[in-house]
C-alpha cells in the first residue's frame, strides 16, 4: 500500500514527460497573431511559402521565435515575414534568432536605411549597401559565432546596448579607411586570438600589407583610393577564399583587382616606380592571355591570376630579376633550362625580364612555333639582328630548332590523320597511337628544350621524336599494306563468287533447255 503513492507519482510524472515530449511547440498567442495577420487589403502578410517554412522548423527554433515574439524583439508581422522569407537553414536561423542586434536592425519600423538590414538587394536597397541579411548569415565570422558584437561591440543578448568598441571611429569612418586595417588586425594580427577560431590562418597580413604599395598609399600617403581589407574581402558577407562566391576566389580575383586597376579614374595620377603613369589595360590583356582563358574560360583553377605573381597582401610588381621566379612557380622545367643557358647571362647584362622579354607579361599569348622564326618579324631573328649580329651560329641554331619542331609537328599531324583514317577502315591502330604518344611527348619536350638554347640538349629530346616518326611510318605502311591485302582478297573472292554464279547460270540454262 505504501508503494502506491510513489507508483502514482511516477506514472503521472512519466505521462507528463511523455506528453511534453510529444506535444509540438505551438505558436505563442503573440506569434500566432503575427502569423495570421492581414494587410489593409485583407491579404495575409505571411505568405503560404513562409508559412510552410515555419511549419517545417524544429521545436527549438519555434521556441526561439515564440521567445522573440513574447519579448517583442519581433513585434510586427512584416518583420516576421522578412525573417521567414530568408529561407535559412536551421543552424543559421538559430544563430540569427539569438542575436538581438540583427533582430532589432531588421525591423524597418525602428531604423533608417543606413542601419537597417534588408532581406536582399532591392530597388530601395541596392546591392552595394552592405546591409544584407542573406550575406551576413553567410559571413565566415558570423558562422564562427563572431556576430555583430565581435566587431562593433555591445551585447547581442541584451535588449538594448550600443556599447561600441573603442577602436570603432565615431565619425568620418568613410573619409579615410586607414583605420580599417588596424581594426581587422586586432584579431588577424594576433596569433593567440586567431588560434581560437582558425589556427591554420596566418597572422602576417597587416605586416605584409604595410610593405605593399597599397599599404604605403593608404597608411602613409592617406590616399582615399587605396584599398583596405574590405575593398577585396567585403564587409558583411566575408567568405573564405575557397568559397566560389568570395570576391577573392581564384576565378573572381581578376575582376576584384580590375575594379580599381582597370579604371582610369581610380588610377589617375598614380605612377609606377620608373615614373611612368600606371596603365589600366592589365585586366583586358590578362583576359585574352593564355592564363586568363585557362582560368576564366576553361575553369582551370590551377591557372595563375593576379595574386599568383604579384602576391596577395604584399601585392607589388615583381622586379626585373623576379619575373622568372614568378614564372618558374609553374614553368619550372623551362626556367631551369633557361638559367643554364647563354641567354641568362646576356639578358642579365641587358637587364631584361627573362621570360617577359619574349612572352610579355599580362597578355601572354599561346606560344607558337613561328616565334622561332629567323625571318624579319620573327622573334629570334629580329632580336639577334639587333643585339647579336656577330654570332651567325645563333641564327643557324634557331633555324635548326624551328625546322626540327616544324618537322615533328607536321609528322604528328600526318600520322594522326592517317591513324584516324585507318581506324575508320577497321584496321588496328593501337601500335600507331602508342608511337604517336611518344612523338607528341617528344614534341612537347623539344619545345621546352628550346629554352636551353643549346643545340646538343635539344637534339637529344628531338631524336626520340624522330625515332617515333620512323617507327610510325613503318607501322602506317604496314597498315596500308594490310588494307591493300583486304581489297585484293575481296577482289579475288568476288571473282570466285562471280565465276561460280556464271557457271550456275549456264548450268541452269542448260537444264531448262
Amino acid at each position: 500500500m505504501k508503494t502506491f503513492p510513489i507508483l502514482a507519482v511516477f506514472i503521472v510524472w512519466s505521462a507528463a514527460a511523455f506528453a511534453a515530449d510529444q506535444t509540438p511547440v505551438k505558436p505563442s498567442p503573440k506569434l500566432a497573431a503575427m502569423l495570421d495577420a492581414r494587410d489593409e487589403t485583407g491579404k495575409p502578410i505571411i505568405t503560404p511559402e513562409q508559412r510552410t517554412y515555419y511549419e517545417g522548423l524544429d521545436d527549438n527554433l519555434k521556441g526561439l521565435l515564440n521567445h522573440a515574439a513574447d519579448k517583442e524583439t519581433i513585434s510586427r508581422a512584416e518583420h516576421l515575414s522578412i525573417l521567414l522569407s530568408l529561407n535559412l537553414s536551421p543552424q543559421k536561423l538559430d544563430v540569427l534568432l539569438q542575436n538581438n542586434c540583427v533582430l532589432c536592425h531588421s525591423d524597418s519600423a525602428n531604423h533608417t536605411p543606413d542601419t537597417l538590414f534588408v532581406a536582399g538587394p532591392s530597388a530601395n536597397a541596392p546591392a552595394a549597401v552592405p546591409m544584407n541579411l542573406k550575406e551576413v548569415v553567410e559571413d565566415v565570422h558570423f558562422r564562427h559565432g563572431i556576430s555583430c558584437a565581435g566587431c562593433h561591440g555591445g551585447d547581442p543578448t541584451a535588449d538594448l546596448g550600443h556599447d561600441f568598441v573603442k577602436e570603432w571611429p565615431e565619425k568620418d569612418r568613410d573619409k579615410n579607411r586607414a583605420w580599417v586595417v588596424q581594426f581587422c588586425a586586432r584579431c588577424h594580427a594576433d596569433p593567440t586570438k586567431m588560434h581560437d577560431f582558425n589556427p591554420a590562418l596566418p597572422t602576417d597580413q597587416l605586416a605584409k600589407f604595410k610593405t605593399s604599395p597599397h599599404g604605403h598609399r593608404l597608411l602613409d600617403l592617406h590616399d582615399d583610393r587605396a584599398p583596405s581589407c574590405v575593398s577585396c574581402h567585403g564587409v558583411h558577407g566575408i567568405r573564405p577564399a575557397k568559397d566560389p562566391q568570395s570576391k577573392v576566389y581564384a576565378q573572381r580575383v581578376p575582376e576584384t583587382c580590375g575594379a580599381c586597376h582597370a579604371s582610369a579614374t581610380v588610377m589617375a595620377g598614380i605612377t609606377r616606380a620608373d615614373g611612368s603613369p600606371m596603365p589600366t589595360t592589365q585586366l583586358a590583356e590578362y583576359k585574352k592571355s593564355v592564363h586568363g582563358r585557362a582560368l576564366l574560360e576553361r575553369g582551370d583553377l590551377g591557372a595563375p591570376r593576379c595574386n599568383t605573381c604579384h602576391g596577395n597582401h604584399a601585392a607589388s610588381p615583381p622586379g626585373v630579376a623576379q619575373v622568372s621566379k614568378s614564372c618558374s612557380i609553374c614553368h619550372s622545367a623551362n626556367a631551369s633550362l633557361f638559367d643554364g643557358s647563354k641567354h641568362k647571362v646576356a639578358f642579365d647584362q641587358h637587364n631584361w625580364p627573362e621570360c617577359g622579354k619574349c612572352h610579355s607579361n599580362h597578355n601572354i599569348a599561346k606560344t607558337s612555333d613561328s616565334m622561332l622564326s629567323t625571318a624579319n618579324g620573327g622573334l629570334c631573328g629580329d632580336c639577334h639582328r639587333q643585339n647579336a649580329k656577330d654570332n651567325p651560329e645563333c641564327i643557324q641554331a634557331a633555324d635548326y630548332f624551328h625546322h626540327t619542331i616544324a618537322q615533328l609537328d607536321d609528322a604528328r599531324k600526318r600520322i594522326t590523320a592517317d591513324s584516324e583514317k585507318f581506324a575508320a577502315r577497321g584496321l588496328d591502330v593501337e601500335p600507331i597511337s602508342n608511337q604517336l604518344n611518344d612523338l607528341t611527348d617528344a614534341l612537347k619536350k623539344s619545345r621546352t628544350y628550346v629554352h636551353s638554347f643549346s643545340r646538343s640538349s635539344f637534339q637529344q629530346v628531338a631524336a626520340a621524336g624522330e625515332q617515333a616518326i620512323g617507327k610510325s611510318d613503318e607501322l602506317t605502311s604496314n597498315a596500308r599494306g594490310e588494307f591493300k591485302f583486304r581489297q585484293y582478297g575481296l577482289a579475288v573472292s568476288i571473282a570466285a563468287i562471280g565465276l561460280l554464279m556464271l557457271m550456275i547460270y549456264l548450268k541452269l540454262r542448260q537444264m531448262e533447255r
Partner: protein
Amino acid sequence: MGWIDRRYQVTPLFEFLRHKEVPIGSHWMGWYYLGGVTMFFFVVQIITGVLLLMYYQPGEATSYESIRILTTKVPFGWLIRSIHSWSAHLMIVSLLLHMFSTMMLKAYRPPREITWVSGYLLFLLTLGFGFSGYLLPWNKLAYFATTVGTNIVKSVPLLGDWLLQVMRGGQDVSINTLYRFFAGHVVILPLAFVGVIGLHLLLIQRQGMAPPVGTTTAPRGMKFFPSFALRDLLLWLACLMLLITFAVFLPYGPGIPGMDWELGDKADPFAPAYPGIKPEWYFLWEYQLLKEFPPHLFGLEGPQICLFVIAILLGIWAIIPWLDRRAYRNLNSPAFTDFGWAAILFLTYLTLMGWDIGAKSGSDDPTSLQKSAHVCALWTLAAGAVVIIVRGWRFKHRWFILTGAALLQVAVHGLLGLPYLVAGVISAGAAFVIITAMFLLGRASRSSAG
C-alpha cells in the same frame, strides 16, 4: 544411293522435290525469293556466330577485351565480326520485306495461317537476337542502350518489376545482364529459332508457295528443282558478295545511327549516361512512340498505355489471317492491302522522327522537335503520295482510307503541330466514321437492290 534408300526411303522425297512447282502468277516472282534470302542470312549468322564464340569470352574483364583483340589481332577476326553485324541488319531488312510482301499478297490465307504465325514468331525471335547481341561487346554504347531498352519492361503491369530483374539479373544492367543475354543469344534463341524455322519450312514445302489471290486451279508453274532452287542459290551468292564488300569497305556499318558497331569505349556502369542514346534502327519506331506519350494519361502511366497500344498492334498483326475475311474466301481484300501500307507509313514516320531527321541530334528543345516533325512529315507525305499514285494507277487500287488516315495523322502532327496522340485520335476517328458510313450505305444499297 540404293544403300541409303533401302534404309531411309529417300526416293519419295526426291520424287516430291522433282515434281514440286512454284506458281507463276500475275505478280512479280521476286517476292518468292525473300524468305530464302532471310534464311541465307540466318545461316551466315550461325556460321559467323560459332566462329565468334571461339574467341569471345563473356565477363567483366574479358567481354570487351576479347572483342577488341578479335577485331585487331586475330587474322580475319574483323571480317567475321563485320559480316556477323552486317548480316544481322540485312537479315532484318529482308525479313521485313518478306513479311510485308506476304502480307500484301495475302499469302497468309487458308491453308497457310500457321505459316504466317510461325513467320511472325521468327520475326519476334530475330528482334530478340538483335537486342541481346547488341550488349555482348560490353561497350559504352551498348551498355546505355540496353539500360534504356530494358527499362521499358518495367511498365508491364504486375509483372514489370519481376521481368526487369529477370532480364537484368539484378536491379541494374550489370555483368549479370550480359551473362543472361549471352545465354539467350547463343543458346535459347537459336534453339527456339531452329525449331520454329523447321516448322515454317516444313509447311512451305508441304503446301508449296501461295498462288496469287483469286487463282483456283493450279496455275502455270516453275520447277522447284532445278529452276527455282538454283535461282535461289544465285541470289544467295549475290548476297554473299554484298556482305563481304560491305565488310571490307564499311567494317563498322554505314554510319547511320542505330546501324553502327564501332567498339568505342568499354562500358562503365559508373559513368553518367550521355544524351541521345538511341536503340538500333528497327526499334526506333517503338522508342519514338514511347516519347510521344505523356508521363501520365487517364490516371495510368504513359509508357504503360504505350506498351498496351504496341501489344494490340502486334496482336492484330499476328491474327491477320483470321481477321481478313475476304482473303479467307480467296477474294481481293483491298482494305488489308491498305492496312499494310498504312502500317508501313506509320512506322516510317516514327522511325524518321526517331532519327531526328531535320533536327539537331539528341536535342529536346521543342522548336527543334517541331522542325524535325515538320521535315519528317513532308518526307512521309511524299512517300505516301507515291504509294497511293502507284497503287491507284498501276494496280488499280481504289481503297485508301487507312493510308489516308495514317497520312492525316502525319499531317496534323507534323504540319499543324498538334500533339501526336491527338492527331492519332483525330485520324482514327475520321477513318472509323468513313468506314462505318460506307458499311451502312453498302448495306442500304444492297437491301434496296434486294
